[in-house]
């Protein structure tokens, strides 16, 4: 690892990424068009992936870019197609209780962060005990160059089996909830109410009529 970057450059880069993250988050809260919100959440994931790269956590950045910016965005988009395109307008007004809770929680979090160990501190609890052991023993125990893979698949293989089972369960849950009748070529169910916007409403009902009619026609002929 023979590369030299000035520390100030890293600080500037980190500050830029964090500022962009903050701006994206605030914009996401304020925008009402769901399409823009989904796109912004993808941008948010991409920015956090960049931030993870600058923290030298390449594997996490990889996952974040693939899952957060890729799959989640597409899933949110396809979920959005099933609902309205816009968020319901919120009733304007101030809520003192919510503001109070947010300020208190944020204050406590900032206060707690002053007690955190410095970034990269080898004596920090996250690095000290079992982490140090993994770093010391991986070259002789597993002999895999990527430490993350060694920890994930070998030392903590049982944990990872649990993670795979979680993903598997999520897939099974989606199958059970959304039903696989339409997937296997069975009857397509229209249990979703028509769109809110009048123009889309007419189009959707037209499409729906065509779709439900065609299989019956095929069956009759």
């Amino acid at each position, binding site marked *: 690892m023979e590369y030299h970057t000035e520390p100030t450059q890293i600080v500037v880069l980190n500050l830029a990424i964090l500022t962009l993250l903050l701006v994206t988050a605030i914009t996401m809260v304020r925008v009402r068009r769901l399409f823009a919100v989904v796109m912004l959440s993808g941008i948010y994931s991409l920015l956090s992936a960049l931030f993870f790269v600058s923290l030298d956590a*390449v*594997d996490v*950045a*990889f*996952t974040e870019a*693939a*899952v957060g910016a*890729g*799959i989640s965005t*597409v*899933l949110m988009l*396809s*979920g959005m*197609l*099933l609902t309205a395109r816009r968020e319901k307008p919120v009733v304007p007004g101030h809520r003192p209780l919510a503001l109070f809770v947010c300020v208190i929680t944020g204050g406590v979090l900032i206060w707690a962060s002053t007690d955190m160990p410095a970034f990269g501190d080898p004596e920090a609890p996250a690095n000290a005990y079992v982490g140090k052991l993994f770093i010391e023993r991986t070259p002789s*125990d*597993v*002999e*895999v*160059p*990527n430490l*993350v*893979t*060694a920890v*994930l*698949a*070998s030392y903590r*293989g*049982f944990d*990872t*089996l649990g*993670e*795979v*089972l979680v*993903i*598997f369960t*999520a*897939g*099974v849950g*989606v*199958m059970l909830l*959304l*039903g*696989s009748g*339409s*997937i*296997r070529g069975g009857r397509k169910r229209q249990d*979703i109410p028509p769109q809110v916007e009048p123009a889309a409403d007419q*189009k959707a009902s037209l*499409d729906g009529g065509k*779709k439900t009619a065609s299989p019956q026609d095929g069956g009759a002929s």
Partner: protein
Amino acid sequence: MMGHVVLRITIKILFAPITLFALYVQFHGDYGPGGGFQAGVIFAVAFIMHALGFGIDKTKQALPPKVLPAIMVSGVLLYALTGVWSMFYGGNFLDYDLIQPDSHHHAGQHIGIILVEFGVGLAVASTMLTVFYHFAGREPEIADEDW
């Protein structure tokens, strides 16, 4: 729908490299960043991109949804059975060293990690595609004005 020509051509060009990259990430996971989770997602992304460009029905012809649950189950089983395999040699669950006990370079660990990561990749890719098929399959195709 003859629009999105640029998009479709781009997807056609990119499909094979993305799949290849997924395989690289999958099997190179112990040497560089990556592994089964990332590879599975990248593999699924190639098909999702195809579905976005060409409509989900074309993608379903290329990769039928019927096979996905089988791949999901086989991925999880591959992982779990690798663990059971080491138990046959008298070790603990997922104790890879016993797969190749005489190796001085921990070949057992490498074999175990490759198998387990492949199981993860299979399960993740098929689950992501299942979720996508179920969400996107409810709408015939993405209308032009929704882009």
